């Protein structure tokens, strides 16, 4: 199986209303390819000192790991069309690629409306179902349009928990939701540069995908309602025929 070809083909024609994600994905893919070619060049270069070669390859592969995470994030945002499917994709990325063990995702129906809880991980964590900036431990860090970061050792234990991080979810530059981070995996001491790159990308592009998924849900409900109306009309026509 050629992974890259399959991935590129499967993304073609998807992501209606998610154009900026597709564009970001293309750029990342090109950068990963460039790094791959550079690693091959360096590994083949016998004029380089072995330690130097190892150091450069290590740096390039670390960069490649981060970019691969970003590519996978973009791919998942583009491919996950339903709302719950999209939330599952965001959860997977936060758990497996960033290394978060506890977090909540919020979204609002309109720019001025309260933020509503969409998903929380692990499921037992107490998190406000409705959030108003300024109110409660999460609201106190959910300042409009800005990220918030605290060191893991500065964590304050409250109920509901106080986040160690808040990353806004933007749409056209406007905050429409956010990710409250409560805990990281035990071996992580804090957010690393690569984690922040992934979270920044999520902040920038997930809003577009969530809004697109919400529109799909609404459109589906409209179609279902129309189908109900038609079914009911059909029944009454049948009754009147009798």
């Amino acid at each position, binding site marked *: 199986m050629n992974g890259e070809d399959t991935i590129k083909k499967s993304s073609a024609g998807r992501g209606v209303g998610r154009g900026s994600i597709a564009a970001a994905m293309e750029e990342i893919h090109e950068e990963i390819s460039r790094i791959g070619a550079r690693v091959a060049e360096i590994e083949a270069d016998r004029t380089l000192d072995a330690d130097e070669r190892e150091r450069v390859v290590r740096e390039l592969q670390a960069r490649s790991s981060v970019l*691969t995470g970003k590519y996978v994030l973009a791919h998942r945002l583009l491919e996950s069309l339903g709302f719950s499917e999209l939330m599952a994709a965001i959860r997977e990325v936060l758990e497996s690629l960033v*290394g978060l063990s506890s977090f909540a995702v919020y979204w609002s129906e309109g720019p001025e409306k309260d933020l509503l809880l969409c998903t929380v991980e692990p499921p037992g964590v107490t998190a406000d179902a409705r959030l108003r900036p300024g109110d409660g431990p999460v609201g106190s860090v959910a300042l409009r349009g800005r990220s918030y970061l605290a060191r893991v050792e500065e964590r304050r234990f409250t109920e509901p928990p106080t986040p160690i991080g808040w990353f806004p979810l933007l749409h056209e530059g406007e905050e429409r939701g956010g990710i409250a981070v409560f805990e990281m995996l035990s071996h992580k001491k804090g957010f690393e540069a690569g984690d922040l790159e992934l979270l920044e990308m999520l902040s920038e592009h997930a809003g577009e995908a969530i809004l697109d998924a919400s529109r799909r849900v609404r459109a589906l409900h409209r179609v279902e309602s129309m189908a109900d109306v038609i079914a009911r009309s059909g029944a009454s026509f049948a009754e009147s025929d009798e």
Partner: protein
Amino acid sequence: MSNKILIVDDTETMRLYERMLLTGQGYELDLAGDGVEALEKMKEDLPDLVLLDIMMPKMDGIECCRRIKEDEMMKDVKVVMVTTKSEYERVKEAFAAGCDDYITKPIDKLELLSKIKELLRFMNLRQLLQT
């Protein structure tokens, strides 16, 4: 001939991420979504190495590893468990089940490639000596 690697994870995100990390490294790759599917695929086409997530529905990675190592046809396949550090107790269980190595999430590309390369080099050498 290139080595075959089977990636086993219940999340699309990790299957894609691991596949991306290993693409272009000269391996033949295949995917499975849980332990049951992995064993079925292995009966059809035996890989050289399995990258196995611990937490999965239907059959978790530890049970899958145990079955691989108990099976006469599959026991030489190298098994690398993919885990989080918080599952350390389960890593011990995985070693008891016969796994060859483990790697923690979030996965570092260089660490993954080094571990796979080392395990496969050892296996390829042994096969060469046997022939």
